[in-house]
């Protein structure tokens, strides 16, 4: 999930004073002896926002990010472990509460997304841990009278000669020492943990024994479980309902009408789920923009918009029209990608306990600050008195950056006056997502007589994510003193609020950046039928990667060139992607496919990382089988090599589900897909063998959670072209008979 802000936006937010203050490293925010951090404990020295050392010698990492499978808990534990010279397995990782010290730079709130966690925390957490190390060594020197240069911190002890003292005996002294302004970080050639796989992920044991706690597993006293019967059209309203005896069913506690549905609170979830079926409902669709929208007309609307509207300029370099006129070969093509659901394995759920002046929320979220804000608004409780607990997320992929289900749970808890756990069914989840927006794009390019690209243009029609994001997030981005009504007004205005922000960057990202072409233009036509949109793993790159890398293949063929060589000659300004592509081609045996197998390649830079993939495919009838994918990634310095590999595998398979099967369609505003039988995903049977190679790099670490996704659909589509001669320009990839 990309953070939705270009550099310009960041600067603009700073001007407005909207960004949350960055962490001041090593400065414990202690006021009147009371820590301002949400997870401080009496038994521990809270060195700063991130690290606690207890009087029992345990080291705790207060993790500012959400663990949704991407391995961030291991990644961040590794950074701390490296500087403290101990195993990540010995570090107790605890998800931190909400505090401005945990905000991501430039966003102003705590967010796990944009493949940014390691990139942003790499130096910050190492500096934090190195500060703790410095203070522990100073404390030991003071207590033992041994010169500090003779002391060494290792495995939770400060050692010298044959003697050692446990850190538990040093925390009291360390806690009152002056914090150094600068600390020395471990040199990369001394790394024992960063770049190695010496110990399993810190969450592995819990996840193989069924003891890992997800949001849906949270159990609090007196909780009522809730299910909601909702309007089949998002945005439709409840006109009237007849509980029809639902309130008399066993276990049922209360039936509650909501704006958009009817909820049943019961002792057990199954009772609630059964009871909602009993209820008769009348809906009012007059306010729903979506009620008249069907997929067939939607695609036609996108095509018409591309044809009739000039759109807004998102990027321009040189004079493309002139270059096109003088090109030896020109090519145009139209590509389409549909709406997609996230389909996390754990359906959305949220547990809320409201008390008169405080509240607790348990929710798998990628943005706990937004949760706090939403619950504050609904309950009227001051947001500083709302504690957000983030258990493990059963998948996020961007969906858990949006919190309609939190608002529902808080509304129900307020209405019923009891603690509530709301659980969505798979049907709720599939039909009420914040979908990856559909996109239709016109691509055009011109080649000179040597087959060199002279001009490139991309014009995309589709909806934007930003208005939907701003609607929720404005509350945490605006200063706390701003009146709620004004915050809501800003939120409703969406991204159009700010002058000069003509095009939502996530709508056009990836449409032109990777290759060197002297004349380029990207334009955007906003067409939003009203189906709400959100961040979906790799965001705009999820469709741009398919469009651009398929079209590059078309251009290579049009110019009679090898598709690898054609790409390489246009990558002179993107050497890291060039290297990844060259290496992927070598590893995959480019040009030498096995009999009956066909290769396709694609390479995309996203989230500051660079990934090339080669797909090995066979085609029987209309059946596309992906046998193997070779993937090469350059994400800078690697913290946990095997976790980077798993993230590439994960992105490839997630992207393959979209490439082969994924499509959300509408009929009169109703999402037609409901569950895994009509929204199928890749299973064991169609999962390819995946070989991942990591480029050895000393560059600053960058994203791994998403960059593996953008190339895969194009790599498969290009291999299908090589197998069949059919150029598939829409997703999911579907062969003609």
């Amino acid at each position: 999930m990309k953070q939705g802000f270009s550099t310009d936006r960041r600067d603009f937010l700073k001007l407005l004073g909207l960004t949350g203050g960055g962490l001041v490293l090593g400065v414990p925010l202690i006021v009147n002896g009371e820590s301002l951090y949400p997870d401080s404990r009496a038994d521990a020295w809270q060195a700063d926002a991130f690290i606690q050392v207890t009087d029992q010698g345990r080291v705790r990492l207060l993790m500012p990010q959400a663990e949704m499978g991407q391995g961030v808990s291991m990644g961040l534990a590794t950074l701390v472990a490296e500087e403290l010279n101990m195993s990540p397995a010995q570090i107790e990782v605890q998800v931190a509460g909400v505090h401005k010290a945990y905000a991501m730079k430039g966003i102003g709130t705590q967010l796990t997304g944009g493949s940014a966690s390691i990139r942003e925390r790499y130096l910050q957490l190492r500096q934090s841990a190195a500060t703790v190390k410095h203070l522990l060594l100073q404390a030991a020197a003071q207590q033992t009278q041994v010169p500090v240069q003779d002391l060494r911190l290792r495995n939770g002890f400060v050692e010298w000669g044959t003697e050692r003292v446990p850190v538990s005996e040093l925390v009291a002294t360390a806690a009152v020492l002056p914090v150094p302004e600068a600390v020395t970080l471990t040199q990369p050639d001394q790394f024992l943990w960063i770049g190695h796989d010496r110990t399993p992920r810190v969450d592995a044991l819990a996840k193989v024994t069924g003891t890992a706690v997800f949001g849906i597993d949270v159990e609090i006293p007196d909780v009522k479980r809730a299910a909601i019967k909702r309007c089949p059209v998002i945005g439709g309203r409840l006109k009237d309902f007849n509980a029809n005896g639902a309130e008399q069913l066993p276990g049922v506690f209360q039936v509650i009408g909501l704006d958009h549905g009817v909820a049943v609170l019961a002792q057990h979830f199954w009772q609630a789920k059964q009871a909602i079926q009993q209820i008769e409902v009348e809906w009012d669709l007059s306010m729903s923009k979506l009620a008249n929208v069907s997929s067939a007309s939607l695609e036609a609307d996108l095509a018409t918009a591309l044809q009739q509207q000039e759109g807004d300029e998102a990027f321009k370099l040189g004079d493309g029209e002139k270059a096109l006129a003088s090109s030896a070969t020109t090519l145009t093509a139209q590509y389409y990608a549909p709406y997609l659901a996230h389909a996390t394995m754990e359906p959305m759920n949220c547990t809320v306990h409201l008390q008169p002046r405080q509240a607790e929320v348990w929710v798998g979220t990628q943005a706990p600050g937004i949760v706090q804000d939403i619950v504050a608004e609904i309950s009227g409780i001051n947001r500083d008195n709302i504690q957000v607990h983030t258990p493990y997320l059963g998948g996020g992929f961007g969906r858990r950056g949006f919190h309609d289900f939190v608002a529902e749970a808080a509304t129900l808890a307020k209405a019923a006056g009891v603690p509530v756990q709301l659980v969505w069914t798979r049907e709720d989840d599939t039909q009420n997502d914040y979908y990856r927006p559909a996109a239709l794009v016109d691509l055009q390019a011109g080649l000179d007589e040597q087959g060199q690209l002279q001009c490139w243009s991309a014009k995309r029609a589709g909806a934007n994510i930003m208005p939907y994001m701003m609607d929720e997030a404005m509350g945490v981005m605006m200063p706390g003193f701003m009146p709620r009504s004004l915050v809501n007004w800003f939120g409703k205005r969406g991204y159009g609020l700010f002058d000069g922000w003509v095009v939502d960057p996530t709508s056009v990202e990836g449409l032109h950046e990777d290759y060197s072409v002297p004349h380029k233009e990207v334009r955007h036509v906003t067409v939003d039928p009203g189906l709400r949109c959100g961040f979906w793993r790799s965001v705009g790159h999820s469709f741009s990667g398919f469009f651009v890398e398929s079209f590059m293949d078309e251009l290579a063929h049009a110019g009679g060139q090898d598709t690898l060589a054609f790409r390489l000659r246009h990558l002179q300004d993107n050497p890291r992607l060039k290297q990844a592509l060259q290496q992927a081609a070598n590893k995959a045996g480019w040009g030498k496919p096995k009999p009956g197998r066909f290769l396709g390649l694609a390479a995309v830079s996203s989230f500051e990382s660079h990934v090339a993939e080669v797909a090995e495919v066979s085609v029987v009838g209309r059946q596309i089988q992906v046998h193997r994918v070779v993937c090469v990634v350059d994400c800078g310095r690697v913290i946990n090599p095997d976790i980077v590999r798993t993230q590439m595998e994960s992105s490839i398979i997630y992207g393959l589900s979209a490439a082969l099967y994924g499509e959300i369609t509408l009929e009169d505003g109703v999402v037609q897909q409901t569950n895994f039988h009509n929204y199928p995903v890749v299973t064991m049977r169609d999962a390819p063998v995946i070989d991942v190679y990591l480029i050895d790099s000393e560059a600053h670490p960058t994203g791994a959670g998403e960059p593996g996704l953008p190339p895969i659909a194009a790599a498969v589509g290009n291999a299908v072209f090589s197998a069949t001669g059919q150029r598939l320009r829409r997703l999911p990839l579907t062969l003609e008979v």
Partner: protein
Amino acid sequence: MISFQLNGQTVTTDVPGDTPLLWVVREHFRLTGSKFGCGMGLCGACTMHLNGTAVKTCVLPVAAVADAAITTIEGLGTVDQLHILQQAWIKHNVPQCGYCQSGQLMAAASLLSQIPDPSDEDIDNAMSGNICRCGTYPRIKQAIQSAAQAQGRGVVLFDPADAEGVSL
């Protein structure tokens, strides 16, 4: 009243017989390792063993398991005594978000008890009803193969005590 064996203990419940076993185990007996994913027997997150065989319990009425033996992930192995598949899962770095993994492990354990040395095709057949959105399939396959081999030779693939003790 319906009685059955849950991880070796006899349990009794008075819920209506059409209540899916999954919800009885999760909410009445508070074993939450088995997960709700789809409610239609399509994703396998709820997989448990019924008399040793993997079943989807989100669509299995509790009445159907009267007097039967049910095993959940909590009964497969514990931190102190990991099942060979749990060891293999850690060795091969399988779990990501982890939500589907209880079901994956139960499906795999059922497979290994029936076919101790499964082929790739056996694995595909046995495991294709268990969805993982994190895409851990290639590693699940490797882990099953490695557990199958280790099982025959009595090899330990992973011991938590070793990992805790890793220090340099």
